[in-house]
């Protein structure tokens, strides 16, 4: 790491040319950083402030200003009254859909990934490397290439347009990423621990639940966050396999904002957008460092 200003000789004349240059460099550095921060934080600020404005105030301009007469009406409308498609019950039902879909899908896919990763890392068998490669290759496949057959399969199973169908799909296509995450982590668990337990007669699942899982709370948190974010934010599967009554938040939000009917209530749109982003944003604020680890591992999934 460099330090552009590490030598600041103090002399009696308080601003030597060298010291002045150092201060200028430092000032310029923070100036750039503030611009960067404004670019990334600005949109969220505008989103929030617009969601508390009245429509007349929005139409009078002033994108960056704070609301003159703050109102929570847009939030109430977005949550309970806004019209999405032909129903006018706001986002609350879709928020529920997203929760009912995301939570089981996350728990099941993380559990499956943990067992797979453990089996591959700690109980290798001839061909285990091939099995790992075959599973993990799924991380790279653009899911467009499976959309049509998945739709056919869900119709055959009677699950098309249901939350259960979406859970099934998210669990299946979550296997590659969770398996990869856990397998790579479990490689670092010492083999001696496993060997000792096996000599004592411990079996596959006993070792998994009593030794390996207690050693890995961090990777479990990373996997939970990664899967929660991915499934909550998913749009492709949601828009392909849901119907108006089972649609999750991403689809409902897009329908609300990008529908061509009626007057556009921008304040309601902004409140709805904040509601849709809130769960994953709160996770990020609370558990940011796990978040990054998951994203760098899961970035391949996109």
């Amino acid at each position, binding site marked *: *790491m460099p330090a552009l200003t590490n030598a600041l000789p103090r002399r009696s004349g308080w601003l030597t040319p060298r010291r002045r240059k150092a201060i200028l460099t430092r000032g310029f550095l923070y100036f750039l950083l503030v611009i960067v921060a404004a670019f990334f934080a600005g949109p969220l600020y505008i989103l929030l402030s617009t969601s508390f404005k009245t429509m007349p105030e929005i139409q009078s301009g002033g994108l960056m200003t704070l609301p003159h007469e703050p109102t929570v009406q847009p939030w109430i409308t977005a949550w309970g009254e806004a019209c999405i498609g032909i129903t006018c019950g706001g986002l609350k039902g879709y928020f529920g859909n997203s929760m009912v879909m995301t939570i089981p899908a996350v728990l099941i896919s993380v559990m499956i990934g943990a067992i797979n990763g453990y089996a591959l890392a700690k109980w290798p068998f001839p061909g285990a490397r091939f099995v790992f490669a075959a599973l993990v290759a799924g991380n790279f496949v653009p899911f467009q290439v499976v959309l049509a057959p998945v739709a056919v399969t869900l119709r055959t199973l009677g699950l098309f347009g249901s939350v259960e169908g979406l859970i099934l799909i998210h669990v299946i296509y979550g296997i590659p990423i969770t398996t990869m995450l856990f397998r790579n982590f479990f490689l670092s668990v010492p083999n001696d621990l496993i060997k000792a337990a096996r000599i004592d007669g411990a079996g596959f699942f006993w070792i998994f639940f009593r030794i390996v899982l207690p050693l890995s709370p961090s990777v479990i948190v990373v996997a939970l966050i990664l899967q929660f974010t991915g499934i909550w934010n998913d749009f492709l599967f949601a828009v392909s396999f849901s119907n108006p009554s089972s649609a999750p938040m991403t689809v409902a939000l897009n329908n609300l904002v990008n529908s061509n009917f009626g007057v556009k209530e921008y304040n309601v749109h902004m409140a709805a957008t904040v509601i849709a982003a809130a769960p994953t944003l709160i996770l990020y604020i609370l558990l940011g460092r796990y978040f990054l680890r998951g994203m760098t591992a899961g970035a391949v999934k996109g």
Partner: protein
Amino acid sequence: MRRFLQRHMSQIALSPSLALIAIFLYGFIAYTAAVSTTNSKAFPRFDNFVGLEQYWRLLHTPRWHVAFTNMFLFGGLFLLVTISLGLVIAILIDQRIRAESFFRSIVMYPMAMSFVVTGIIWQWLLNPTLGIEVMVHQLGFTSFRLDWLTNPDTVIWALVVAAFWQGCGLVMALFLAGLRGIDEDIWKAAAIDGIPAWRVYVFIVIPMLAPVFLTVVVLLALSIVRSFDLVVALTNGGPGVSSDLPSVFMFDMAFRRTNLGLSAASAVVMLGTVLAILIPYLYAETRERA
């Protein structure tokens, strides 16, 4: 029997996943490839084999040309902007600054949001009658134009800026990790020799980050091929079809235009694009390790 179960528990535990992936991934890819050789419309049918005709038709569909070209245009600009600015921001944050974690968090939080949310936010900011354009007008610069969303020639920039806003955090974090991994002695030696910092970056540090560049390019390239939600939420392919991407074309053909055969062909081309990115990368990786 128990002994057998114990000894093969690993394979037994893996087999459901393997079966599911074999069917839902490899089986379905084969299925889509098969559909792409048929004349299927609303439903997949296998009694109307047409060979490679759908690919031929794809080549002669103007909308596909727009979508496929856009993927490279959007992809190229997005890569260029995100990698260069992501690296610059990582370098700025690496200067022993105060409140480092504050700045890092601000650059990275958009990662937590869905592309639908990002698309809607930028649609609002780029709205020509209420967004940034009006704000700049009110500051007195009345000739300022920001018509990316309504101008077919520049709409690609709307996608680039929104994708950059969302994706820069990850790139910055990867570069920052790379910068932190570089030996401190290089900086000490450069300081003794009186080499200015920018020259150390350009001629020593950045070349040392080559592996990070490779990872970043592959990650971003894969996300470019798959980009779908952002386009749907931000421009919905418009104005006209000027910001279409292959994923949007594929979805439209499959679910709205009931042209499954053509849609399958476009999906196979997308998979082919991913393989074209991935195979050289994996080849380079394995050769490096060997």
